[in-house]
């Protein structure tokens, strides 16, 4: 079974073989193979014109990707750590996101920004953030957060095909681990904007993304052994957000728990909550809607601190358990 790094590499490789206008650029994506080894071997395969090592200039090369996209190319721009998307924020949020709309449709911006996010590597506050929330409130960007290698591959293929800018955020801790199912061969695309019901159960709905999906599945297994059946939904694309399966599931279970690694104040889970709390399924709710999220703190360095900063399996379990047992 492929790891997430391998699945992402496979998607990029397939897209680059299919379309000459696709290329990869970023810091150390060439001979080095990327800080997390995601593009290992691609430089050797595609050469320096299609796997481009940039200077340490995030604003510059993301802007260059925008310009190249306007001129007929389909760049995949890797940001070494998603934290550095702050450097490129103008080109992402003010240019890439808005050009198509602002120019009345005269131009469009088919590009993908790939970046690892998340904690767990002991890299401290400037290398460990979940940055999703910087982008979900910026109309014009699609934001994808894969939770496993199979989805990562299919979603990335679609992201590269998409005529709009897509921010594709990979959790670093997933890079080296295989998923829970094999990665389909070939160019099996998974459409953006379609959520996935990863597991079905009648007692509780959990919505989670990225690394939290795996943790939620662990919790679901544990609870199942205790006779509680949990639905786990992975939106996969958090902007635009497909709520259809969540509405259906909550209508059935009457209980909703949302999980994210990023700080509690903000984030995609709030949008999920808000949409449910304002929807027709509001009446089906048997319990308050709970969230399990990171503490509202920068990610600390020491392992014992870092672990305390973000949700662990036990935290999700405790919250799920409480909802189901308190609100029968």
């Amino acid at each position, binding site marked *: 079974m492929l790891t997430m790094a391998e699945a992402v590499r496979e998607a990029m490789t397939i897209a680059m073989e299919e379309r000459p206008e696709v290329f990869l650029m970023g810091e150390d994506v060439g001979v080095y193979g990327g800080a997390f080894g995601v593009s290992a071997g691609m430089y050797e395969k595609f050469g320096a014109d299609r796997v481009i090592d940039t200077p340490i200039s995030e604003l510059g090369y993301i*802007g260059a990707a925008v310009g190249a996209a306007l001129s007929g190319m389909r760049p995949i721009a890797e940001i070494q750590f998603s934290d550095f998307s702050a450097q490129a924020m103008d080109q992402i949020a003010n240019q890439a996101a808005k050009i198509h709309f602002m120019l009345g449709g005269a131009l469009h911006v088919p590009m993908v920004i790939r970046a690892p996010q998340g904690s767990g590597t002991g890299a401290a506050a400037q290398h460990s953030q979940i940055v999703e929330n910087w982008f979900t409130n910026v109309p014009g960007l699609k934001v994808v957060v894969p939770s496993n290698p199979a989805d990562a591959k299919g979603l990335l293929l679609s992201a590269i095909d998409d005529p709009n800018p897509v921010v594709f955020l990979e959790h670093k801790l997933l890079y080296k681990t295989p998923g829970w199912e094999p990665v389909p061969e070939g160019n099996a695309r998974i459409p953006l904007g379609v959520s996935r019901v990863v597991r079905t159960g009648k007692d509780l709905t959990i919505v989670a993304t990225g690394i939290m999906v795996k943790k939620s599945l662990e919790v679901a297994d544990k609870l199942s052994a205790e006779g509680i059946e949990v639905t786990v939904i992975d939106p996969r694309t958090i902007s635009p957000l497909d709520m259809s399966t969540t509405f259906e599931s909550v209508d059935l279970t009457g209980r909703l728990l949302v999980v994210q690694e990023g700080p509690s104040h903000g984030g995609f889970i709030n949008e999920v909550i808000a949409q449910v709390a304002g929807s027709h399924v509001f009446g089906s709710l048997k319990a308050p809607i709970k969230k399990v999220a990171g503490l509202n703190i920068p990610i600390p360095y020491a392992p014992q601190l870092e672990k305390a900063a973000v949700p662990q399996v036990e935290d999700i379990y405790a919250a799920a358990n409480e909802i189901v047992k308190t609100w029968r």
Partner: protein
Amino acid sequence: MAPKDLMIGHPLSSKAHAKHALLYMWKIRKFEDAVEDLFGRGMMHGTMHLSVGQEASPTGVCMALKITDQITSTHRGHGHCIAKGADLTRMIAELLGKEIGYCGGRGGSMHIADVETGNLGANGIVAGGIPIATGAALASKLQKNENVVVSFFGDGALNEGAFHEAANMAAIWKLPVVFVCENNKYGMSNSTEKAFALENLADRGLGYGIPGVTVDGNDVVAVYEAAEQAVQRARNSGGPTLIECVTYRWKGHSRSDKNLYRTKEEIDEWKTKEPIAKFMSLIHEKNLLTQEEMDAVQQQATDEIIAAVNESVKAKAADPAGLEAAVFNAVM
């Protein structure tokens, strides 16, 4: 479609070229006058950044460009847009928020683009277009299509990180891009004396290994000659050039400007260095056009602007329906 009258070559190389340069400078001047007038009459919304007094640099640069060459432009972008060949009616219509405007009323003055003539767009972000131009030049290099990209920007933009990062990338990859800095002495209220510890802003290129040239930005001929050299260099894989066009902004920075940061004398002095008169005297010297011919060119510009305004005013206002569907491009 390219406008029928687009013309490449030295502004003094023929009667036709001289007429072209003169016509385009007049078009820009008259366009800006019309904008100011529409604003004054409350027919236009938002703000405006006029390039009156700066007509020579867009005109001179664009006469060195093929229709397939591209540009990026700025908040003060009407001149670039016109010089590259855009349709005046669609420009005015955009300012008036009409459906037929270049952006369907969604962008306004600061976001006009005209793909047909290679204009990748004005930009409301100072220096925002510079990395974009550099990326378009990268595309040109990767696609081996020999297009050159010109990025227009102001003196103030040179102090943005976006310029820096793009300039270095262009230099190391020898990209076919020309950086045209229209130094009009001020970034809003901040004078170049205060914002730079440099005599010539073109020296900013030295830190990247990029050749820098300073030219009289009010002399359309000098601008053309510098641009032509830089464009050929870029087209022949020689890499970027930084051209500083020294010019002056006659009007306030935008609508809200009270001109507190400069003197009336300074403005008046620069009015004596006016680009259109300067070019007309060159035409005279060379005996290229008669006074009547020059008057006719001016009249043509006036007529075209009036026609564009009249047509735009009558056009249908942009419709709020469909705004949400317009955020993403749906075509794969």
